[in-house]
């Protein structure tokens, strides 16, 4: 019975999400705002993956910009090639200006839409798997892993800036069509929004299944006691790699949607700053929960757009302050605050009583194998 209600609640939750995303948002938002919202949904898709890898797996992924960028650039290359083909050109516009007459070899596979879509899935997950196995098998974790993933984001951004064949620091811009649909047409823009909304719901569903499965329980166990898990006969590296790869996949798909929705993909979307920006929403929303990262990412991105229009410089400080306050005082994020308030209202008539300590999702220091 309990399970039945649980299942009903889940479907109801997804139903409400679908109504808001597919019914309410397009009805009340202008085309311009809907385009912005579509962009926020891309960030939310990245956030779902970060919630899984960081919140549940304890891996502080500070370099999701890498996978976001890979997805975005792969999609961007395909869009540029097809735009050029529409006007019977051999190479995209920015290459013509640079005097390049022939398409570089590594661009050519992405002329095919199928190859492009496969590459958006396969290349980032392959890189994440290789990297994950290399790093986790060697038991690199904690701050070292965070620094490593961040360095990777910085390295990719610098590499891209130096490559004129992908537009240098401007990146790939000025997309005209998306698989044959003109991006100038508001209907097609709305279609892109719907695709992003659908992908977001799907990614939440996948993350939910992973979190509730036995794998999800195991992932939390690895987060809280990696060495202990080893003594139960598991190799924690394999368990962590799965979450890392899923997070990379979500980031890549989000990047691939971001490029046509926003109309460009550039090194500024890949480096350290955007990678950290992805984290802020997740931390504020509540990284261990399913929906916290989604709502946090959308909320922060929305606030950024609204407030930075009016107070461009103050917003940066406010964002930093918010991040510090949440990480320092509400490690479970706003979702944790909700639980905290509900518990106070329910079980504690006495407002003077000590606050219930929040469950601290921070990975505890390794208890097992202290002398390893």
């Amino acid at each position, binding site marked *: 019975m309990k399970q039945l209600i649980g299942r009903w609640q889940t479907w109801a939750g997804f139903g409400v999400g679908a109504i808001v995303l597919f019914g309410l948002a397009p009805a009340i938002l202008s085309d311009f705002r809907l385009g912005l919202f579509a962009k926020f949904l891309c960030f939310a898709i990245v956030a779902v993956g970060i919630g899984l890898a960081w919140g549940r797996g304890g891996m502080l992924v500070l370099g999701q910009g890498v996978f976001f960028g890979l997805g975005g650039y792969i999609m961007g290359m395909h869009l540029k090639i097809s735009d050029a083909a529409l006007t019977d050109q051999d190479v995209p516009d920015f290459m013509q200006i640079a005097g390049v007459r022939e398409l570089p070899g590594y661009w050519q596979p992405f002329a095919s839409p199928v190859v492009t879509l496969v590459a958006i899935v396969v290349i980032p997950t392959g890189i994440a798997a290789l990297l994950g196995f290399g790093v986790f098998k060697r038991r690199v974790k904690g701050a070292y892993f965070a620094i490593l993933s961040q360095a990777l984001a910085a390295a990719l951004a610098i590499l891209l800036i130096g490559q004129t064949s992908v537009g240098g620091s401007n990146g790939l811009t000025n997309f005209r069509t998306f698989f044959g649909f003109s991006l100038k047409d508001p209907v097609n823009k709305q279609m892109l929004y719907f695709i992003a909304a659908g992908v977001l719901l799907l990614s939440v569903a996948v993350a939910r299944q*992973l979190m509730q*499965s*036995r794998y999800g329980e*195991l992932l939390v*166990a690895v987060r*809280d006691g990696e060495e*202990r898990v080893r*003594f139960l006969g598991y190799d924690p590296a394999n368990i962590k790699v799965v979450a890392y790869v899923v997070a990379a996949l979500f980031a890549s798909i989000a990047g691939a949607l971001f490029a046509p929705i926003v109309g460009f993909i550039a090194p500024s979307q890949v480096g350290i700053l955007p990678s950290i920006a992805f984290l802020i929403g997740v931390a504020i929303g509540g990284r261990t929960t399913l929906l916290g990262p989604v709502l946090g990412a959308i909320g922060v991105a929305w606030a950024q757009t609204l407030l930075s229009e009016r107070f461009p410089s103050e917003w940066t400080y406010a964002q930093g302050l918010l991040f510090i306050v949440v990480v320092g005082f509400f490690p479970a994020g706003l979702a944790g605050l909700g639980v905290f308030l509900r518990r106070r209202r329910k079980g504690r008539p006495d407002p003077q009583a000590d606050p219930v300590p929040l469950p601290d999702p921070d990975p505890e220091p390794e*208890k097992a194998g202290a*002398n390893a």
Partner: protein
Amino acid sequence: MSAVDTEVHPEPAAGGNVGMGTQYLEVRGLTVDFDGFKAVTDVDLTLFQGDLRFLIGPNGAGKTTVIDAITGLVSGTGSVSKSGVELLGKKVHQIARRGVGRTFQTASVFEQLTVLQNLDIAAGAGRSVLTLLRRRSGVLPAIEEALEITGLADLADKPAGVLAHGQKQWLEIGMLLVQNADVLLLDEPVAGMSHEEREETGNLLRRIGGERTVVVVEHDMDFMRAFATSVTVLARGQVIAEGSVAEVQANPRVQEVYLGTAAAGTEGVPDELKEES
């Protein structure tokens, strides 16, 4: 903890209760070298199923290091074989899969997960990808049994973090049971426990020890006298005596190590034997 009639389970006995026919753990010439410091030198141990072996010795004798080496946490030289399979050189999780389980001085259960989830994870090292990606449904019979035998059935849905100290250690032992470990290496399982909890832990070890090989590192001499079927004494990384409780207590080298007081019986156990890091 519920009383389980011991007639069903064979009682642990010195030298094991089934001979060499079943599982055994054989340690030969085990040496652990920490950058020139020999924590363990040339240790030999032979353990048969059904033996409840206590590993005692003063601080720094290398008791925990022996367990660490057997479970792959530190690398050692020599030979550790379980029923003929060499364990030394294998990785921690591979050794665990061979049926060697251990606990730690400080209970290390997964505090955010429930008792049931802890046990379910312990039981699942061999699960397929498909099983892992599905939700847990129902409780495995082995887990029910472990909940009963450790007396944690009523607490199955409580997060492990809220358990009392003794219950956490029992949960750890329960995890070893569902893990299907037949060699159990317990590092100070009763440290910090009340008298009643010690009794119950001892009875628990008795119940599970008949069908398994149990090694207990311990400082509590009363506990050792009450429940050990055989004892190995380590000092400065070497085995200095082995035998029944009475034999070991009568051994002059053991008396020397324990300042001549261990043979005196229940009284006069020096404090240093009761507490350690």
